[in-house]
């Protein structure tokens, strides 16, 4: 315990927040890859791709670190996750890793090399959409019922995973959310950059995907009731207000984009909408990281390591937050840079 808070609480909040960070910046990144591909295929390279490259070039590497931070942190705070997720996720995680690598490497080859090849844009544009799909499998598995106990350990039950409506609804939600978040951010970005043609394309995508996104959310919710009733009831009884707040923010954001008003606030609404839903989902999941094997209260790392991790985390943040702000100030929030003048 430190400052009256249990270590497992600190650990899980830190990790969940970083995962949210990754989901948001990652979504912008993956979706941007898809839009770059879309721009090339439809001959809108000028309208879309320069805008996207201007945003992505300085930040994509930082995006990736959010993910590394998460999986190093979770093994640090809750070492048992290494055992359960490690032994069951060999194939799905390896697929994710291969797609992530293709995406990261070919993004760099395409953008920093002197050649520009359509096949490279296809590789990094499409792989971007597969990443959230494949990563969401880990979240699906965390709901339990997909792991069987064998003679020598725990294995993934492929059949029940592939036949599960819950799993597919989560995968669908992951992909649609990427297009939704990414188009929202890039619409705002294009607005600041005064790129009118890119702006109208992206805004159209956003409005197109808003409906399916919220519909899939509902579907995931309903299929969770079948799949993990305990989790579902917990969400309804204790976190319902978060989901309602999230829905209101969604309406608000969509209206703002529709009426072309206050674009920065509109994106903040999208961000908050996801954060509320994210924490609602996370809080209702507690105390299980992997139902029913890993319970945060029982599998937290030993106290001396938890203390040093917490200290390292606080010191690390003191270093990171100002640096990140500097990065944002120089590139993302710098009007001259965004408009392509620097």
């Amino acid at each position, binding site marked *: 315990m430190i400052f009256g808070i249990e270590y497992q609480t600190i650990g899980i909040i830190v990790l969940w927040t970083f995962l949210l960070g990754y989901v948001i910046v990652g979504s912008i990144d993956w979706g941007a890859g898809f839009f770059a591909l879309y721009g090339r295929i439809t001959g809108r390279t000028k309208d879309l791709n320069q805008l996207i490259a201007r945003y992505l070039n300085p930040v994509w590497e930082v995006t990736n670190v959010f993910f590394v931070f998460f999986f190093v942190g979770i093994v*640090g705070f809750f070492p048992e996750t290494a*055992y359960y997720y490690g032994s069951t996720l060999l194939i799905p995680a390896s697929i994710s890793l291969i797609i992530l690598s293709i995406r990261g490497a070919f993004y*760099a080859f395409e953008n920093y090399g002197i050649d520009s090849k359509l096949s490279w844009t296809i590789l990094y544009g499409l792989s971007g959409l597969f990443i959230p799909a494949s990563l969401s499998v880990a979240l699906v598995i965390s709901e339990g019922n997909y792991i069987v106990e064998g003679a020598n350990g725990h294995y993934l039950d492929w059949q029940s995973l592939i036949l599960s409506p819950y799993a597919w609804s989560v995968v669908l939600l992951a992909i649609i959310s990427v297009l939704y978040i990414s188009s929202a951010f890039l619409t705002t970005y294009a607005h600041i950059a005064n790129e009118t043609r890119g702006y109208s394309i992206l805004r159209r995508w956003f409005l197109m995907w808003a409906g399916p996104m919220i519909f899939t959310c509902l579907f995931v919710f309903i299929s969770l009731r079948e799949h993990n009733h305990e989790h579902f009831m917990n969400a309804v009884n204790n976190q319902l207000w978060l989901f309602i707040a999230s829905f209101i923010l969604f309406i608000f954001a969509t209206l703002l984009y529709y009426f072309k008003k206050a674009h920065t606030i509109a994106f903040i609404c999208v961000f908050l909408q996801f954060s509320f839903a994210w924490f609602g989902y996370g809080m209702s999941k507690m105390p299980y990281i992997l139902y029913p094997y890993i319970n945060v209260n029982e599998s937290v790392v030993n106290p001396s390591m938890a203390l040093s991790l917490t200290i390292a985390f606080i010191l690390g943040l003191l270093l990171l937050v100002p640096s990140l702000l500097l990065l944002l100030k120089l590139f993302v929030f710098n009007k001259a840079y965004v408009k392509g003048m620097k």
Partner: protein
Amino acid sequence: MDQVIIARMLAAMTLAFHIIFATVGVGVPIIIMITEFLGIKNKDKHYLAMTRRISKGYTVTVAVGVVTGTIIGLQLSLLYPTFMEMGGHVIALPLFMETFAFFFEAIFLSIYLYSFDRFKNLWTHWLLNIPIVLGSTLSAVFITTVNSFMNTPQGFDVEGGKLVNVQPLEAMFNPSVPVRVLHVVFTAYMTVAFIVASIAAFKLIRNKFTEDRTYHKKGLKVALITGIIFSVIAMFAGDLSAKFLHEHQPEKLAAMEWHFETESQADLVLFGMLDEDTQEVKGALKIPGVLSFLAGNSFDTEVTGLNDIPKDEQPPLIIHYFFDFMVFFGMYCLAIAVAFMLIWKFKPKWIHNKLLLSLVVLTGPFAMLAIEAGWFLAEMGRQPWILRGYLKVSEAATDAPGLILTFGGFLLLYIILGVSSVYVLTRMFKDKSAKAQMDELDDHTLLNDQKGGY
């Protein structure tokens, strides 16, 4: 095939591929820091163009380094779940700190690469090198402490098969840390210096853009001088390693030197072939007593032989070859660099000799091979342990189905990434002379004072 073997092969393949890009990642920042310093201080466009060209190529290697680093980070849990569950209790701190260092570096590298023309004062941009060098070097330091922990674990007690009473700092600063960190960091600096030398020498031989000769000669000079300095430090660290192994990991020293009987005045064995059954070494160059001297600064030092180590705890004897390769390649680089610089000083005309330049071209690839050989030596030298003295690799490997499929997938990935990066990197500077790059600089960089940057 056996799960344990496939898991080891997959881990070895990923690490062998990653270490190329990781080494470049640790070494390049210090080199661009030096060239940019020379450029600003002497108002020399050659060095400024050099800084930009190296950092441009760097973006591609960083990308591949980042993705392969992500792979190895997750693969540890996928391939050795039992080890990570057990070790996670003890080594989480340095792993966590490594991520922070990496984060820090990533942020400032992004700023650095896109702000060459944004600051009025060139030194402001130069200062960005400091967090990058710190971040990249510290991530190497932290990750090396984790690997060192696996070699010389400490900072915990064992109770009923579990690691308890963990002391994170003691585990992190385990006995093998100082020597290995020194060796890892400086061999990385050294390798990148020699890679730069190789490129410069290659371009001088090729002589495609005659106007670039001065540029490449300057590059060659700064690369060779830094290469010499770093390799002397790396060699010194290597020497400390022998003494360290003698004290703490005698089985590794004995296996890499094919030293079977415990004795004083032990011979240093270089090269040769071994008949494992008779323990007979053929065709080797034996230097009497030197192993004892290296191990303890005295010919009378008694060096433990393999026959005194339990059979099931002996590392594979093949590591001797890796040791030979590492030493030979490392020494080659230093010797060529020194010789070339001496020739340059006393017989400057000779340096245009293509044969002589070809010898320099070999230094970069050789230094990288030395890195690979060194890591194979270090890693195979602690077999059969994954956590020396506590957990064997055979008990730690996953038995999840589909491992061979995974191996095939990653093999294909590394082939694609490797070929593509070579293609992209070679295309990058093939058709553009450094002179052209310098002319671009004219417009905005050195005259920045009047124009007013960011």
